[in-house]
């Protein structure tokens, strides 16, 4: 019998099945991947193992012994630790307070000094140094993840579940994480690695269990796998075309100019510092960086949702720094916002209504001030067909669609306006491979038509594949602008972590 086994596990939320008859068996000391698309049930399954949820059916075994896990406390006691995708840290508390929080061994009056000593010895051992006395909200995302790992190890975890651990890291940080993982397995600890990135699984994992729509598809030995295409096919259930075909194209005139853009937010933090770049017709400019390094503010300044503190945004030869959103949209800018649910659509309105939110002024949509529903419905049905939105009909509430279909109609709505400039932020975040590839192809098609595209993404593969030019942001500053041909994961990674390209050295020091 294997070290850890989950047998015939099912989990239903209000009769919606998240896991159905899942079987998982893991040996001691291995790195075991759970691969699956978003919504395949990976996180739910691991939350069952960690006691956050209870399985509706099925049994768990550890070392041949049946496991009864009521809550995370039981799981911790059995040596199971989990690093959630959204970190479970209290930002207002110090590092060491977070480490000891809720531990059964705690005395009534806390001895934080002793705990800090033990913690520091541990962080030294794994080469993940963190000051135990700083508040957690002072830590970078990468350090918060280390803290989460150390927190689990501090509780003597033998099985460590990592839920999409690389999503928030630079490539170099991923390297450090993988080193730690190897060190842990050498000590006999078992790692469960949740991911949908095939490259990483090929690199670090021994075995891989594939989940699809809540069910186990297969467990494979990673060394037997030919290439990532094979894993992708297992994950999706049919062959997918991973490669994008991009034509060689000479860019046209400059259509968007961002000149020394500085944005200071309400808390007096400079979120953007003298950002400068421009976009030509038929060119895709990728903005790359770890989350929250100014991308969101940059996009908002371009689309008029925020106004830059200093500098200029020039759209089609007009200074639009202080222009309103309506004016900018009317100039031919389309915007696929970062947050699908809160910025791109209104969940409680129908698809029909969502699709005409910003088009009402246009010809055909209304007659004598009344919406021409007949015409609108017909138009929108065509649009849904063209953009492959799967919905029973256009009167369905937008909130009832799957994420992929929601994003497709948003993309459809924006592209239907025949933009000259397309601003797309995380256009395929959280979508399955099929939908992702579809949206990427649409963006490439826009490029063919001569549209200038600003593409913000944290996925380096996507940035490197689609962009003609890559702007790397770190802490609101441009670290450098690379041509697609010169870009490598290593180069981008270093720049994302704050290394400047020649020609982009810090000048402000001299000016201050």
């Amino acid at each position, binding site marked *: 019998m294997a070290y850890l086994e989950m047998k015939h596990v099912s989990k239903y*939320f209000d009769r919606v099945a998240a896991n159905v008859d899942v079987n998982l068996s893991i040996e001691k000391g291995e790195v075991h991947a759970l691969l699956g698309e978003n919504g395949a049930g990976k996180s739910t399954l691991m939350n069952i193992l*960690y006691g*956050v*949820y209870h399985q509706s059916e099925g049994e768990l075994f550890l070392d041949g012994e049946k496991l009864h896990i009521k*809550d*995370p*406390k*039981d799981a*911790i006691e059995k040596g199971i630790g*989990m690093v*959630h995708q959204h*970190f*479970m*840290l*209290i*930002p*207002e*508390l110090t590092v060491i*307070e977070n480490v*000891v*929080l*809720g*531990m*059964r061994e*705690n*005395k*009534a*009056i*806390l001895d934080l000094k002793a705990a800090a000593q033990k913690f520091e010895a541990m962080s030294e051992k794994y080469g993940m140094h963190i000051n135990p006395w700083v508040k957690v909200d002072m830590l970078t995302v990468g350090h918060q993840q280390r803290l989460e790992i150390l927190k689990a190890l501090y509780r003597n975890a033998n099985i460590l579940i990592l839920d999409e651990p690389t999503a928030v890291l630079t490539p170099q940080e991923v390297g450090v994480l993988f080193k730690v993982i190897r060190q842990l397995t050498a000590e006999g600890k078992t790692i469960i690695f949740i991911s949908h990135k095939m490259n990483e699984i090929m690199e670090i994992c021994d075995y891989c269990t594939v989940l699809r729509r809540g069910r186990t598809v297969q467990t494979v030995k990673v060394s037997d796998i030919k290439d990532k295409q094979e894993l992708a096919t297992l994950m999706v259930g049919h062959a997918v075309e991973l490669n994008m075909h991009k034509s060689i194209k000479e860019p046209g005139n400059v259509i968007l100019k961002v000149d020394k853009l500085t944005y200071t937010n309400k808390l007096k933090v400079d979120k953007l510092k003298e950002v400068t770049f421009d976009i030509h017709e038929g060119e895709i400019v990728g903005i790359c960086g770890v989350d929250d390094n100014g991308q969101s503010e940059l996009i908002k300044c371009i689309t008029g949702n925020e106004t830059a503190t200093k500098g200029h945004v020039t759209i089609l030869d007009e200074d639009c720094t202080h222009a309103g959103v309506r004016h900018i949209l009317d100039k031919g800018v389309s915007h696929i916002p970062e947050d699908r649910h809160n910025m791109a659509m209104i969940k409680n309105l129908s698809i029909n209504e969502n699709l005409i939110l910003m088009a009402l002024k246009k010809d055909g949509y209304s007659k004598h001030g009344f919406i021409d529903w007949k015409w609108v419905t017909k138009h929108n049905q065509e649009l849904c067909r063209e953009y492959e939105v799967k919905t029973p009909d256009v009167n369905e509430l937008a909130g009832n669609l799957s994420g992929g279909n929601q994003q497709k109609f948003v993309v459809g709505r924006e592209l239907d306006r025949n933009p000259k400039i397309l601003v797309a932020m995380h256009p395929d975040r959280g979508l399955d491979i099929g939908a992702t590839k579809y949206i990427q192809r649409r963006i490439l098609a826009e490029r063919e038509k001569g549209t200038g595209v600003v593409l913000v993404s944290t996925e380096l593969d996507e940035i490197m594949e689609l962009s003609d030019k890559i702007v790397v942001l770190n802490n609101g500053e441009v670290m450098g602008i690379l041509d697609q041909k010169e870009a490598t994961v290593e180069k981008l990674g270093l720049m994302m972590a704050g290394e400047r390209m020649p020609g982009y050295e810090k000048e402000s020091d001299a000016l201050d």
Partner: protein
Amino acid sequence: MDTIVSLFSSVVRMSTPILICALGAVFSERAGVINVGLEGLMLIGALFGVLGSFCTGSAFLGAVTAMAAGLLFALIYAFFTITVKADQTVVGIAFNTIAGGLTVVLYRVLLANSGVSQVKGFNTVAIPGLSQIPVIGPIFFEQSVPIYILYFLIPVLAIVFSKMNIGLKVRAVGDNPVACDTVGISVVKVRYMTVLFSGVMAGMAGAFVSMGQLRFFTEGMISGTGFIAFATVIFGNYTPLGVLRAGLIFGCASALQYKFQTSGSAVPYQVWIMLPYLITILALCLYHKKSNAPKYSGVSFSKD
């Protein structure tokens, strides 16, 4: 000199009910439960303190009755807000309304026609030695027993809050209940405990108001002290020591109000009565940097 001593001695007395109530509330607020019903809980404490003292003839048992009543009503509050997950503000307001009516009914039925006009209350006990110190002595050490207990309670609660395991849990639960759940802390249990503790403290604070000076119950006698305690927690930036500072400021305002009222100035006395409330509003307007405010304040916790 005598004026100053009597003024500051009055500041200590005026601050006491605010502080007792707010020191309890700072724990429940930090755990993420807003208790707008403090006013009502204090009113109930005020009535039951007098009732207890009336029935037993003992001020101590009166105080115990008040705390027990506070505990019981806090339990009801906790049940509705934590277990049933009703909106905390709505339940809190309902509590104040019910307490307003209930205390009047009970008072009229049980006390108004009893022929008694005063019950045993908290007597002033001068502490030998300490009370002889000039100025300090009469201000701090010629007070009643609950005030001495408060002196002792402030540092103890400050330590519980910042140094003890239970305090860490309380601070964590209001900031990220989901994270607490994943490290095995029972969010519901921690919240229940803090609300019950806050109920006991509010009951005691109410008893101090009724049994301290007047030694009897009058309808609506809390007249906003519970709300001031609620404001004190916010103004004190959600820590016991912050509450101490803020509570003293509000106590000061109340004491000054009485001084001015009796000083015979040309200003109508109603203006002075407004003073503590005015300061409360001003303080809350000016002080909106709520760095310690719990992120999940007022949000019910559910697992799935």
